[in-house]
């Protein structure tokens, strides 16, 4: 889930200054980029092209892929499990991102106001340091129907126990919640970092003009935070669509298909049924969804980028 937001860093210092040895480094440069270039071509570019190609084939891994035109895509459009997976994934993303962004925003603003000490940011980030698998395992236990401390507490305050991971209404919100636990601190720190970029002079100017603190929060912080939130969303939404680990550990798509998110279905089709062609076609569909979302969000960010130049 790595992201770089570039505003042309290339222009900072790279332009040719007259060098004492103005020689051409092409040979050396080639040597220097060779390993990375091989990695890039072999493990990124080639698989991308191959993934697209495989989506037009019938391929079970043992015999060479057979071209079958649009068969996989036709099957996909008619596959109710695929549409359900897409629906489940979207539902997950909405809950996951909605909850996470709101919580992260509150945490970031509060950290900004209360203390900027590293220890607090460290604690908030701690869940992010462990894997999705670890997070899933812990919550599997904490939310266990019989023995989980979560349900004990719910019991103690007089409510009915919740079958968090085995009821089809709760399963997706629960998985979303588990991943919010792991990622909210990271998201909060991203927003927090964004908050640091708002120049203090703006607040000074506001104070000189006699604006109240609440007024300044509304008219300075919020508008300037918008492009930051938009960037955070690009990063988190794309990551959220790829949910897999938590599902694989906790529910394996169940009960029935109620947590069968798209990535889990793709894995299941590829490694459970060895239908790599069909799995690739669904991957392409997911890729298109991600590209479209990134593009839309990118446009929205651009539209808002006038806020702080």
């Amino acid at each position, binding site marked *: 889930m*790595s*992201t*770089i*937001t*570039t*505003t042309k*860093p*290339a222009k900072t*210092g790279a332009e040719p*200054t007259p060098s004492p040895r103005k020689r051409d*480094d*092409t040979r050396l*440069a080639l040597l220097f*980029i060779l*390993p*990375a*270039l*091989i*990695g890039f071509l072999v*493990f990124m570019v080639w698989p*991308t092209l*191959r*993934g697209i190609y*495989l989506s037009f084939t019938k391929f079970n891994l043992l015999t060479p892929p057979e071209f079958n035109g649009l068969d996989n895509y036709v099957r996909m459009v008619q596959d109710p499990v695929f549409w359900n997976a897409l629906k489940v994934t979207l539902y997950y993303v909405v809950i996951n991102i909605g909850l996470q962004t709101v919580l992260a925003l509150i*945490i970031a603003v509060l950290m*900004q*106001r*209360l203390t*900027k000490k*590293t220890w*607090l*940011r*460290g604690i908030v980030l*701690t869940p992010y*340091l*462990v*894997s*999705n698998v670890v997070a899933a*395992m*812990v*919550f599997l*236990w*904490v939310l*266990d129907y019989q023995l989980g*401390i979560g349900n004990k507490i719910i019991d*103690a305050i007089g409510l009915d126990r919740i079958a968090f991971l085995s009821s089809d209404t709760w399963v997706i919100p629960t998985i979303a919640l588990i991943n919010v*636990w792991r990622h909210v601190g990271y998201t909060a*720190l991203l927003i927090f970092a*964004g908050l640091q*970029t708002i120049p*203090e002079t703006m607040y000074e100017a506001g104070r000189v003009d006699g604006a109240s603190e609440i007024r300044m929060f509304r008219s300075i912080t919020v508008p300037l935070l918008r492009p*930051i939130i938009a*960037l955070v969303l690009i990063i988190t939404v794309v990551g959220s669509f790829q949910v897999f680990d938590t599902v*694989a*550990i906790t529910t394996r798509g169940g009960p029935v298909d109620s947590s069968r998110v798209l990535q889990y279905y793709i*894995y299941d089709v590829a490694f459970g049924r060895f239908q*790599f062609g069909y799995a690739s076609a669904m991957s392409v569909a*997911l*890729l298109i969804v991600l590209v479209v979302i990134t593009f839309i969000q990118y446009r929205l960010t651009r539209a808002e980028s006038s806020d*702080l130049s």
Partner: protein
Amino acid sequence: MATLTTPVDVPPASPEKIAPEKPGFPAGRTLAWVFMILVIVGSLFPFYWMLRTALSSNNALYAGSDSLLPVQPSWGGFERVFGLQTGQAAIDAGGAGQPISFWHYLINSVIVSTLTTGGQVFFSAMAAYAFARLQWKHREKVVAFFLAGLMIPTIFTLLPNFVLIKQLGLVDTLLGISLPSMLMTPFAVFFLRQFFLGISREVEEAALVEGASKVRVFFRLILPMSTAPIATLSILTYITSWNDYFWPLMVSYTDRSRVLTVALGVFKSQTPSTGPDWSGLMAATLVAALPMLILFCFFARRIVNSIGFSGIK
């Protein structure tokens, strides 16, 4: 995982304007702290619960499920996880009885993460230097090409990469797990390139005038000057690699190449589904989580400050 950054060290703002907040409004501040404390408890409680359960004896968990302290404290969970308990003893304690040894997975995880981090950071640094400092034809085009790589979600390349790893005969090997991210990631290249671009040219020119070759400049000058970003990148890469699940799950089939995350999943699926061995499972979970938590203790400041944007100015 991380986002490119010019270190977002908190600016030394004058104290009275740190908070764009109604000054000295105790009720609001108290409420804010209450919320923050809830966040802190929420973040840390699961870790405590992991430890408390791992140190309990499994059979006692059923009666003492709401005890805040370990129930009948015992090392049994850890003993099962490290294969120190006989099969029968493990079954009696509610475990699966299959021999498991997390030492082995721990070592596998260390090897994979080290290979990945070492290779990725070194080769990315070389490429970043070529992109930032060497003069060659088509440089900007190649840079743009790499930059486009950032747009490809890794998840899309996994399936075809698995096919490739299989063709290379590297399925179920540690090298097979490391290889796809061992040579570069676009993120690592641009992370370092951005830093190299900021290094003053004069120092470099001076060395060149004295007759040093560019290779020497890279190893003797640029790399030593960049220890801070290289350390940050290495830590972040190590954590990402350590926590990865999906890709190793595809590639490993047996204990030969199982890393901790995958082993944890296998361990979970082996435990009896009625009356699971929770203390064993939590012990295993803790073993998988602990190395990164320890790493975090040492590098908290560096990791925390590495999170931020570069693009926003």
